[in-house]
């Protein structure tokens, strides 16, 4: 069930993965995640999605698309991470960031882009 949701949101077929690890070799946020990009792919494939949903790593993906660009098999791990994150939001209505937290994080030069993107990525 959950696997179908992830597949529908992401449009990614994790079976295309050949376990080369180039995504994890490319990822700039690797050390910030407890599950790494290649694990996202294999865990989605084996159905361990709840564990991923509980992980903080889904909020550390930078959406830099290096994994998508360099994947030799066109698997697009970043889409899977995004899909898991959305699954969390849609299932539990859980927000990682609340509007109340924002003011204390702001500095006066911070571009709007940062705020908008933070809301898009971390809250609904």
């Amino acid at each position, binding site marked *: 069930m959950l696997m179908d949701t992830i597949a*529908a*949101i*992401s*449009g990614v077929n994790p079976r295309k993965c050949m376990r080369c690890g180039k995504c994890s070799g490319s990822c*700039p*946020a690797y050390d*910030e995640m407890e599950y790494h990009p290649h694990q996202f792919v294999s865990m989605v494939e084996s159905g361990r999605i709840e564990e991923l949903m509980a992980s903080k790593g889904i*909020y*550390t993906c*930078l*959406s*830099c*698309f*290096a994994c*998508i*660009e360099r994947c030799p098999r066109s698997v*697009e791990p*970043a*889409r899977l991470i*995004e*899909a898991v994150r*959305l699954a969390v939001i849609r299932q539990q209505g859980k927000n990682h*960031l609340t509007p109340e937290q*924002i003011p204390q*994080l*702001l*500095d006066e*030069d*911070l*571009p*709007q*882009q*940062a*705020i*908008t*993107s*933070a809301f*898009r*990525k*971390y809250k609904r």
Partner: protein
Amino acid sequence: MTYPYFPGCTLKTKGAELDACGRKAAEALGFPLEEIPDWQCCGAVYPLAKDEIATRLSSVRALAASREQGGKLVTLCSACYHVLKRVNGDMRNDDDIRRKVNNYLELELPYFGETKVLHYLEVLRDTVGWDELKKKVTKPLTGRKIGAYYGCLLLRPSRELGFDDPENPSIIEDFIRAIGAEPVIYAMRNECCGGYTTMENNTYAAKQAQKIVDNARNCGAEMLITACPLCMYNLTKNTDGSVPVKYFTELLAEALGLEEQNG
């Protein structure tokens, strides 16, 4: 010829002077930009989810509006470019998204991704031409060693954006040459600076940004230029400041001698 222009949230507010430089330079180079009416923020993040429609709507509105105004839409910000171009691609190639968005928007004429999304740099390269730009430069930045910082959003995923070679881009280097300076090529120029997490996880964003600045400096860069306001912020605020970071339009305005008028 006048181009429809999408300024985006940041350049409209915090980055207003970067936007002003860009517009002035465009005017001077013969492609005046005209802000499209009633635009809304693109969302700053491309909705990766295939089943999300709402987050695509504002982009489609802007794209559909420019369809009527010559079929091109110019942006100055990498993020806007990224979002608009990919949403446009969805409208062209993804039947499901196209159908849902069109049903929702109820435009007079359904939108099929006809508009061509252009980054300002692409207009410089393809419409103005580097040689022509070189001729228009009155104050060449001779002797300055400048590193181009591309970041992520301009280049990746190349299959959808097709902006430049994602691993060995050259457009900003060509730009640097055209304004009389010397480009410094360094490998981290297309690595992520972590800008999106600058609020969330500042330590991390700082670490990543510093790595990039170090690599650029070690390769001989005395200055970095970017096409993304968020990258610019992150590389300026969250590093040791050893290499100044500018927006490319600032240097363009300077090279064209438009700075004084700017005040």
